[in-house]
């Protein structure tokens, strides 16, 4: 799971997390008691509020790149991309 979530965990961290999440999963497992026959999994978010898709003034590349950990010209610079094992 940690790998899926792109997190490097130390062995002791992994052990503690497994224990704590075991307890949390046991607790949330109580949901199995609820009779959900015929219930739809809807989210009570009421509406999507749409607007006209019109161009607005964007942020300048300089403003956006000011926070970049590494940049090259107007691009974010990242290490090379290799296949994961």
């Amino acid at each position, binding site marked *: 799971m940690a790998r899926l979530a792109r997190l490097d965990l130390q062995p002791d961290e992994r052990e503690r997390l497994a224990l704590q999440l075991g307890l949390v999963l046991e607790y949330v497992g109580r949901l199995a008691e609820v009779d959900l026959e015929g219930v739809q999994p809807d989210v009570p978010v009421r509406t999507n509020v749409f607007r006209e898709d019109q161009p607005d003034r964007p942020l300048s590349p300089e403003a956006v790149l000011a926070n970049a950990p590494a940049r090259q010209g107007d691009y974010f610079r990242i290490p*090379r991309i290799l296949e994961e094992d």
Partner: protein
Amino acid sequence: MHRLAAHQLLPRLRDRQLRARDLLEQALGRIGRLEPTLHAFLHLQADQARAQADRIDAELDAGRDPGPLAGLPVALKDNLCLQGMPTTCGSRILESFVPPYDATVVRRLQAAGAIVVGKTNLDEFAMGSSTENSAFGPTRNPWDPGRVPGGSSGGSAVAVAAGMVPLALGSDTGGSIRQPAAFCGVCGLKPTYGRVSRHGLVAFASSLDQVGPLARDVRDCALLLGVLAGHDPLDSTCEDRPVPDYPALLERGVEGLRLGIPRAFLQGLEPEMATSFEEATEALVGCGARLVDVDLPHLEYALPAYYILAPAEASSNLARFDGVRYGLRVSGPDVAAMMRRTRAAGFGAEVKRRIVLGTYTLSAGYHEAYYSRAQKVRSVVSRDFQEALARVDLLVLPTTPIPAFPLGEKTADPLDMYLSDVYTVGVNLAGLPGLSVPMAPVRGLPAGLQVIGRAWDEGRLLACGQALQSVRPYHLAQPQAALFDGGMA
């Protein structure tokens, strides 16, 4: 001056008995004296605030109206973006991040003449109930610095409770405005989902998050909500509905209103909290309300559903913190290693727990058993609320099962910490508004009455809070004496 509410300061500012600059200097002085004990703030901008205060004074001197909050110092929870000031979310991963734009609520505050003095401490990415999960150290409760202020908007609640600023903004995903308001003896409102824009709020769980006010009393909450609420084209969940004149609705009272109490859900409440709650509801009866027992049979499942849904959404929302575009980067031999190392170094323990939990409950094979089931439970919890609120006008219950707990008491046991949200999370699942107002102290510590209403009915919640305050003015109690005398409650 630190004892006055915003609505008491405003007329003094308008008739020039009080200058915005003087009010600001008093606020900054008080912050300077109390910060070493309380640590409510992560960033301050004294010089910019002074320039703004001088500009507001010039406008007021010239007889112009700089807006409904003109000259009032405000604090922002540090998950709201203000151009040019760091937005850390209480996390190492955003320690160096300075947003290039303002949150919509920040623009609204500024347009109303408010003066942002700084950003307040929070649990990392708003995940927590004590403000102990901040990477920059905990905030302490002004009523007893050995206790937590609640969370995640703990810094904002403390800034108001300690008289540093009259108004502050928080965000509430599972109780993060109401619970610290209750722990610190101030008022806090979580508005209806869609009432206030989240543009520029760093997302935690997008189907639950709302921005809302923390203030010394209900009238100030109404005043601030009126400035924050309203449509924003930059947030597609923010609805285009008229914004009522909330302060004008305050005096409607509770005469003839039916207040529902979910008695079965409150079984096992500690006796002192139960006594405080009974006293508050009896006071409302004295104001003309009628109490009705209501049944919300699925409310006890709101908390476990929340702790599936919120981490699931968080695991997705926090995927953006990958060391590529902003924030921390820890280098690695390839891009995947860079991301894993960055996130390992940048996130704290609670955030990692929730990311891994959310990744698990969303993963193939477990999605149905956890995430889908929790979404269905969310439906039945919402239905319970709708049915109850069809029979009664408002629901009332304590905001929290216990008052503020000692620092460190729950940090080793995440589940125990989660349980402190038991009375607040249902409101977020159902998208409803919830208000916390001070009721009688419990063992010398502040406690909150939570008022819950129908969607978009904030005016009625506020009127109920105002009714309670007018007969039980617990909001006027001040913690500062203990701090200045060196005594610790």
